[in-house]
């Protein structure tokens, strides 16, 4: 098992180089001059432009720029963004916020998705199943920004249950409302996935045998249906953790969450290569670790899966 984990961590290196190179190149190839854009309609003196260019290495060819970026990265010096702020400091500000939001959203979709999915799957075609299916379809069909604004209006403004915007004081409590919005769409998918998996496993031979052994119904469901049904759900949740960490631009925008999504969006608008690639680098790591966790969970859920061979 240890060898497997090591091998997976080593895979980070090529993945990391490949993604950063690609993203860096795409930023490089973007049309327009980021320095000129900084000044908006004003025309700065040529000397200022030249200084800024050389400060951000923008006067160098692509390979040199990328090489300098890598060098800085490995010396843990991410440099400054175009507003003069150190990139490392702003990453340290936005990632914890997004991590909290992502964990909260993931927990919401995992707990409620699995719970509702199991009940719906066990009584397929029953009233609960039908209601939940239609409701989840509505959730899937409604775009996030509509859902976000409606929740903000109803729970944040009219009922006053939560703060309508997060702003500077991001904590578990203030992030709950955006987390619910963010989690809802995936919740519907988790629910449907669990439901399908449960109702398929319910008819498995070993479930019938378990019943024939004289086990009570809750025991059959927990030990023999649920565990086997979780395998596809775990895969989905793992992939989801990665994309949640990438930041939800729309949701973070609506609730004014100072997270990765917001930061990334601003950086893209400004063609800030170093900031974008720094965020992407962290995300690559997050994805790799999330996938590794999924694989380990997998092996725990299904002993037939062995990674050492």
């Amino acid at each position: 098992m240890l060898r497997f984990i090591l091998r997976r961590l080593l895979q980070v290196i090529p993945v990391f180089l490949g993604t950063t190179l690609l993203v860096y190149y795409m930023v490089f190839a973007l049309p327009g001059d980021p320095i000129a854009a900084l000044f908006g309609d004003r025309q700065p003196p040529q000397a200022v432009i030249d200084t800024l260019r050389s400060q951000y290495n923008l006067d160098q060819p692509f390979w040199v720029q990328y090489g300098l970026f890598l060098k800085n990265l490995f010396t843990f010096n991410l440099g400054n963004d175009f507003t003069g702020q150190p990139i490392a400091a702003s990453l340290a500000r936005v990632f914890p916020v997004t991590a909290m939001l992502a964990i909260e959203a993931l927990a919401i979709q995992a707990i409620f998705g699995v719970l509702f999915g199991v009940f719906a799957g066990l009584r397929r075609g029953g009233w609960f199943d039908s209601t939940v299916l239609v409701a989840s379809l509505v959730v899937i069909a409604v775009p996030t920004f509509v859902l976000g604004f409606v929740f903000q209006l109803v729970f944040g403004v009219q009922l006053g249950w939560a703060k309508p915007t997060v702003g500077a004081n991001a904590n578990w409590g203030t992030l709950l409302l955006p987390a619910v919005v963010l989690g809802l769409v995936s919740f519907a998918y988790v629910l449907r996935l669990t439901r399908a998996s449960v109702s398929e496993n319910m008819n498995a031979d070993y479930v019938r045998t378990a019943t024939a052994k004289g086990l009570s119904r809750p025991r059959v469901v927990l030990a023999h249906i649920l565990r086997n049904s979780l395998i596809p759900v775990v895969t989905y949740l793992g992939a989801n953790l990665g994309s949640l960490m990438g930041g939800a631009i729309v949701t973070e925008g609506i609730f004014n969450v100072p997270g990765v999504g917001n930061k990334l969006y601003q950086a893209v608008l400004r063609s800030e290569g170093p900031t974008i690639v720094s965020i992407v680098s962290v995300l690559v790591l997050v994805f790799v670790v999330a996938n590794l966790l999924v694989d380990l969970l997998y092996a725990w859920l299904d002993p037939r899966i062995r990674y050492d061979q």
Partner: protein
Amino acid sequence: MTTPEIRIDEAGTTGVRPLLEIRDLAITFKTGGGEVQAVRNAHLTIMPGETVAIVGESGSGKSTTALAAIGLLPNNGRVSGGQILLDGEDIAHASEQRMIELRGNTIGMVPQDPMSNLNPVWKIGYQVRETLRANGRPSGPDDIAKVLSQAGLPDSKRRANQYPHEFSGGMRQRALIAIGLSCQPRLLIADEPTSALDVTVQRQILDHLDTMTTELGTSVLLITHDLGLAAERADKVVVMYQGRVVEAGPSLELLRNPQHPYTKRLVESAPSLASRRIQVAKEQGVETADLLAPAAGTAKPDTFLQIQDLRKVYKLRSGLGKATDFAAVDGVSFDVRRGTTTAIVGESGSGKSTVAKMVLQLEKPTDGRILFDGVDTSALKPADLFKFRRRVQPIFQDPYGSLDPMYNIYRTIEEPLRVHKIGDQASREKKVRTLLDQVALPQSAMQRYPNELSGGQRQRVAIARALALDPEVIICDEAVSALDVLVQAQVLNLLADLQANLGLTYLFITHDLAVVRQIADHVCVMEKGRLVETGSTDEVFESPKQDYTKALLNAIPGAKLMLPPEVA
């Protein structure tokens, strides 16, 4: 519980109350097309300590009846009439709570398929422990080990810590028997407990089950499609057909003197060692091996397929990344003569299917040669291989898996013709119609899809597809193993007819010696990759030389039962 009463059961024993009595049982299934009666007017009686077998083909309602007795009908099924009396208590409509009390403790079950009936994610010991615990019995590690070793699982302490996928089929079935009997139930429902296992393993397990139930005084309700097995293992046999009990009585009596037309057909078509080669070929005057020189080994003009010193080695990877060699086929040589049937028999893992795959050129031999009509097949160039495929066609075991569910029957049979660019649209359609006639399927089947056909019909489609290219050799890999006895008999007759009319050569891979008896001229017995015995079918069956062949022959259910000559 009601007070004990004296009653007279069907067998005429007085003074003992039956353990299980099923009276006028009707079971209804709700389907898309309305309600379907799966079982009607079923009745049977099991006395304490008695073994009763229900025999019937798939769809006869035998499993449904048994499942009703333990309250495990599928969700869309319900008991719509009659009674199931367990020791006098009607459990046909008992509450789920009452059934949970009864299951395990009073009624145990050994299910059919050992591969799918153990939960793959829990250790064997855990699955035994939860049974003991749910029924309020001591469930310590020693108790678990004891239950498992009683079911004949050696080294049970260590085995209890393993997962189902680390067990062989036979061992899994032992674990399931251990679970079924762990709480010493008074009634054990054994639903085809060994049909998924090799014959020799089957015999060991049934023997062990016999011993255990006799010791514990357990009554057994045995469900099987195999009349020979039922007669051998049960005191009484109940024959079910299309949801009804058509005949019941003491086993041997029923076998020797069947009354109902269905039972008669079942007895007649049950392949047994006493059956003879299906005679069509010889009557038609086709030259068979018996008429030609029996000397094997030298290449005669009539030797169509020569297998010489064939070897197939697979690399098995072990934990440390080192590969060990595993010889699936080891030094196998035999000849197949034109127009005859050669059977390769053996248990799973004997390498018989690997031989078939190599003859079909689906696997490359590690060593040795396969001469087809005098030409070494391993040296064939792609274009020649394509032509070779036209002459050698396979029929596989699983008629469900070997037909593409998205192709209708016409497309399925026509595909090889299209691939080999034979004829135009019109002539291909004509050919498909002829083929359907040959395999006795109606022309209307052309527009249907595999899932609309029965198992026997699908296997006929597979045969028609194999025949489409007018091949000379057909390799049948367990081609009739998945079929019910009556359907199996029909398909075997069809194959014999086709051989007579078209002069086909068959290489028949099977684990079922009774089938071999009916179809083969020559037999090759394989064990662990090696050929242990070859000879004409009569020789091998009448005077087997190797112990392994004898064991295989002995293991056939009902082999020792005396059948009247006119029936056999």
